[in-house]
């Protein structure tokens, strides 16, 4: 394991002063917030903070899953397709179950009217299952991660259309309204879900031996193998975590829109990768942490939110995101030899 990895591993819950010294992203976030507060009377309003936090939740969850996979030196291009697929499967399976029980759980207008909790459980299991398939293909059948997850992305997008016949499904139960819209102590419920997953992942990845295996595999898979680590199992686990995060992101995402539709969330896998990279996760593996992915999410969301508040068009927003991403990758490349030495 490299020094950089050890640094990342020890960065579970550092003090505020250490954080401010060690994490330039915190200064960037502070700069964005101060700029927003100075230039717009609307930036620090409760409504806008809620918008920002909701954005952090969905993209942050996708990026957390991506971070775990990237720590192993791999990539998961299927996360956005998985987030929609898991919800679609949830609806379809529940409707079939309802048919079996003689109950009509898809009412006029394609509105899902069945119980919500089993539906959510099926969605989560589906996400994990997709991750497991990806992981098994990559770890045991030696399919290149890029190819395996690109194929999954394409196939799942196709499945989404096949399963829905191109129709949207409406999700209008009180449970979805709660997940999508409820604010608890000024914080959107979706953000609380994200924070819970973040804390769990920090504890697992940075605080357990099993979690440290991801860094070991990403740092040097051959060395990890020689050290007796069953790398295949951890690779499968990493993809299952990514699938879990994607399904959870899908629940938060569709609960906000009160519907699921096959074409939704196209291209979000690239946003997830971008956030992880902005947070310092190395594409080559072994470096990164969920905590820094949170910072990456905050930089990404607060920056885009500021541009939106300024009324900057999406073309320019994309340009700025691209520039920031290139800068982040370049900085990480510059920083790596220094960290290794």
């Amino acid at each position, binding site marked *: 394991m490299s020094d950089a990895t050890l640094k990342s591993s020890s960065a579970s819950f550092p003090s505020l002063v250490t954080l401010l010294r060690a994490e330039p992203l915190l200064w960037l976030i502070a700069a964005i917030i101060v700029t927003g507060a100075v230039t717009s009377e609307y930036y620090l309003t409760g409504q806008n903070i809620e918008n920002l936090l909701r954005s952090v939740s969905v993209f942050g969850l996708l990026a957390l899953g991506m971070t775990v996979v990237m720590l192993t030196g791999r990539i998961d291009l299927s996360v956005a397709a998985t987030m929609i697929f898991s919800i679609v499967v949830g609806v379809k399976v529940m409707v079939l179950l309802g048919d079996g029980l003689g109950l009509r759980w898809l009412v006029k207008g394609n509105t899902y009217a069945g119980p919500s909790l089993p539906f959510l459980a099926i969605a989560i299991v589906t996400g994990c299952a997709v991750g497991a398939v990806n992981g098994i293909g990559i770890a045991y059948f030696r399919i290149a991660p890029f190819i395996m997850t690109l194929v999954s992305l394409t196939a799942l997008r196709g499945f989404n259309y096949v399963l829905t016949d191109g129709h949207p499904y409406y999700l209008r139960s009180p449970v979805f309204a709660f997940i999508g819209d409820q604010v608890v102590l000024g914080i959107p419920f979706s953000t609380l879900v994200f924070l819970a997953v973040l804390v769990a992942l920090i504890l697992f990845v940075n605080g357990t031996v099993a979690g440290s295996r991801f860094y070991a595999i990403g740092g040097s898979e051959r060395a990890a193998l020689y050290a007796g680590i069953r790398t295949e199992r951890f690779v499968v686990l990493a993809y299952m975590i990514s699938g879990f995060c994607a399904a959870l992101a899908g629940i938060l995402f569709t609960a906000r829109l*009160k519907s699921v539709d096959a074409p939704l969330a196209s291209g979000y896998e690239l946003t997830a990768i971008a956030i992880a990279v902005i947070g310092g996760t190395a594409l080559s593996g072994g470096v990164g942490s969920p905590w820094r992915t949170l910072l990456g999410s905050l930089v990404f969301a607060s920056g885009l939110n500021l541009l939106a508040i300024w009324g900057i068009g999406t073309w320019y927003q994309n340009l700025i995101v691209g520039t920031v991403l290139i800068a982040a990758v370049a900085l990480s490349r510059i920083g790596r030899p220094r960290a290794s030495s």
Partner: protein
Amino acid sequence: MPAVSRRQLLKSAAGLACAAALPGLASTPASAAPVHDLLNALIKKYSDAAKAAMANADIKALFEKDGFRDYLDVYPVGDLAGGFVWKPGMGASFTGPYSKLQIKAPFTDYLPMNEGPVLDKAKTYRIGFVFHGFNHPWLISLADTAAWEAARHPNVQLEVIDAEFDDNKMGQVIDTWIAKKFDGIVLWPSREAPMGPPVDRAIAAGIPVVSLDRRTSSEVISSEVLGNFYANGLQQGLYLQHAAAGAGAMICNRKDLGSTADSIRTGSYLEVIGNSPDYKVLANYHTNSQRTLAFKATADALQAFKDIAIIFNTGGEEAMGALDAVREAGRLNSAPGGKKIIILANDDAREVLKEIRAGNMDMVAPYTPLIGDIGIRAVIAHIGHKAGLLPEAPPKLILTPNLPMITREKMTIEGIETLTPDEWPYAYGPEVAS
């Protein structure tokens, strides 16, 4: 305003329906009634017939599988707001602020508003206009007309955002405008389902919202400016009945099923042809307004089927993609008996009209994007009504006039007098070399 069913709205056209349903009307000259009313009457005639029976098993299966009845029954058909009567030649000419193309917008006299400051002259009104696709000729024309109307009023500040076909991004844009306490919002939603909740949130925040062209799933939206989708599909069906005499094998290039454009256009087309037993649907593709996908789908179909006689296209982009594939395969005149493949189109882009002129496409049902101005006027009127400055709000349903189909030669089909490309100054998109 309570929800108005299509059936209720159709009552106003019932008298005309009786006239249109009379046998032999197809051979009569064009009706003296406005084309809007005449088309509404034909919509009722064919909708009623399709509800009673659909003799073609192929068409019936497709119609039922895709659930068209659910969409068609709730799509409003009826009178124009304020008793407006549109006539060819009406409208205003200007250069599009975004496309820089010369535009003649047909409906600038609909819900008219004088040039100059609006409502409280001392106040600046901030209006958000969010849509998808600055790179799409139809959509940039929509934005052109919205920006043109806003620019006519010095105390209106318009923020235009392209959500890049990401429904979630469009929702976030609306949420940002709610946080910024905008005075009004106009949107072009790509799909109905996901855009309902953001619109509901804006309405709950006291911001009037007007949708253009397509619908959202919101039931509390201030106004919907709806196009003539029903008349589009109907006229494609009417033309086909006229040209193919009730028989032929077809392929369909369609948009996403969840879109209003596909649900209503394709549904009404099938209503018209559903009682002719000799049509056969060979293949049915969702090419999602993308020319390249329509090209590929059509090229594949041309390889798979030798007897294609009809290509139905839900939109103009699909039609252009299909025609390109037919040309590349050298199959324009490969329908049974050496006849030309009938290509049916929607959306009156200049390049589509060029193909009509050349005889490569057979008809196009115009669906003008030049309606952004109506949305801006409507939302200003809502803002004024909410502030107590105007006595009345615009109606919830603002239907745009039904427009007659365009064919190479002038003809009369079921009382509809078609227009030739040269009689249509409202085409959108870049000029194409002839």
